[in-house]
């Protein structure tokens, strides 16, 4: 049961307060005195509100930092894409240049390929031309092997499927450096690639500085076949650009020696 009290008096006092406030609101809103009172209130509260301002400053800085970071990451990704496109474009130019240099007059026949070392070496007929050991042997613009020696009218070529073939290469899209070598069984592998690289099948493999071969010679493409030999280091099978099984003619890059 509610106690008895003078509710009418309380209501009257309350209403007087409310009406007073409403009159104040109607009369004083927007006046110069109100603005002055607001300025004074703000200046009195200013030191007390500093922690909140500090917090909001920190939040704002953090928000800006994350936004800027997101923008930078997006920009970086765009630049990477652009770089990949430019690299591919440059690779195509280089291929075209190799094709131009490996002209039809430079088409040399394979005169001997021993079945017992089918994937290791073969001999090409060079005629009167002289080629230095280490010259690149191509099928179209794709690397097939290197000349190891020349005697008379022929030269021996070590195939990229040979286990004794070691040439430094780069995965064009990721710029990871590895070494391409064969397994004497028709397979070509890129070795010593870091496991954490973002590799995808179809990425192009090109020669780099570090051997006597010209830079940018196409070797082939990465496949999805991957093996881990040592922790953190992977090997990928390479699909060669040249059909090494059905080779009949090759060209030599570097040109005949004078």
């Amino acid at each position, binding site marked *: 049961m509610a106690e008895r009290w003078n509710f009418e008096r309380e209501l009257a006092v309350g209403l007087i*307060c409310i009406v007073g406030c409403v009159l104040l609101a109607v009369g004083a809103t927007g006046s110069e005195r*109100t603005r002055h009172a*607001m300025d004074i209130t703000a200046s009195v509260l200013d030191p007390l509100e500093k922690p909140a301002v500090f917090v909001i400053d920190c939040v704002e800085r953090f928000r800006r930092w994350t936004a800027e970071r997101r923008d930078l990451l997006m920009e970086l990704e765009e630049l990477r894409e652009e770089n990949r496109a430019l690299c591919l474009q440059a690779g195509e130019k280089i291929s075209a240049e190799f094709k131009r240099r490996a002209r039809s007059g430079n088409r040399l026949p394979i005169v001997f390929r021993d079945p017992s070392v089918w994937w290791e070496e073969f001999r090409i007929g060079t005629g009167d031309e002289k080629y230095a050991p280490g010259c690149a042997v191509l099928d179209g613009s794709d690397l097939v092997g290197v000349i190891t020696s020349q005697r008379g009218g022929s030269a021996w070529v070590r195939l990229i499927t040979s286990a004794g073939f070691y040439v430094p290469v780069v995965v064009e899209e990721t710029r990871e450096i590895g070494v391409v070598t064969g397994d004497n069984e028709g397979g070509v592998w890129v070795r010593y690639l870091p496991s954490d690289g973002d590799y995808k099948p179809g990425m192009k493999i090109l020669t780099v500085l570090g051997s006597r071969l010209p830079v940018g010679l196409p070797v082939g493409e990465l496949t999805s076949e991957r093996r881990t030999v040592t922790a953190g280091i992977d090997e990928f099978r390479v699909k060669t650009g040249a059909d090494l099984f059905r080779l009949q003619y090759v060209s030599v890059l570097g040109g005949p020696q004078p």
Partner: protein
Amino acid sequence: MKDFLTLIFGWYAQDVVQIIMTQTLLAPEIYLMALIWCVTREKQVNMPWRWLAAALCGGLLMDLRWIGVPGLYGALYTAAVLAAHWAWFQIPAASRRTLPYVVITILLCAVMTLSRLLFWEPGVLTGRIGLIIGMQWTANAAVLSFLALLRSRLHDEKSF
């Protein structure tokens, strides 16, 4: 004295939270909850002079700090104190515990939210009204839960 310190702290907390909420969202009604806390702690049915004065002063200060319409929230807080006082003493003395306090607070906070939205710039509200109400009421729920827990620990054993 402790009650007045509670009110001062409540006003300051609401002010600080309003700054942190960047003035585009509503801060929880901490000061109103503190006022109702004080009003509903009264054991005797007396004229709540102290709380009417606190409502007027706190409301006026809030008007001068935030909206520049002196008297608007003074009037609203005064009306809230009157309503809370009236409602509290309609409840039988044995039942004046945490639950009625929570119910009265929720109702008055709802009215206060509505009044704040009415006096806000419509441009700020466009498309964000759900977010504004949702954020404020999430914060209201957090503060009120804390106060209800505190009140049930402190006062529910005692008779009002």
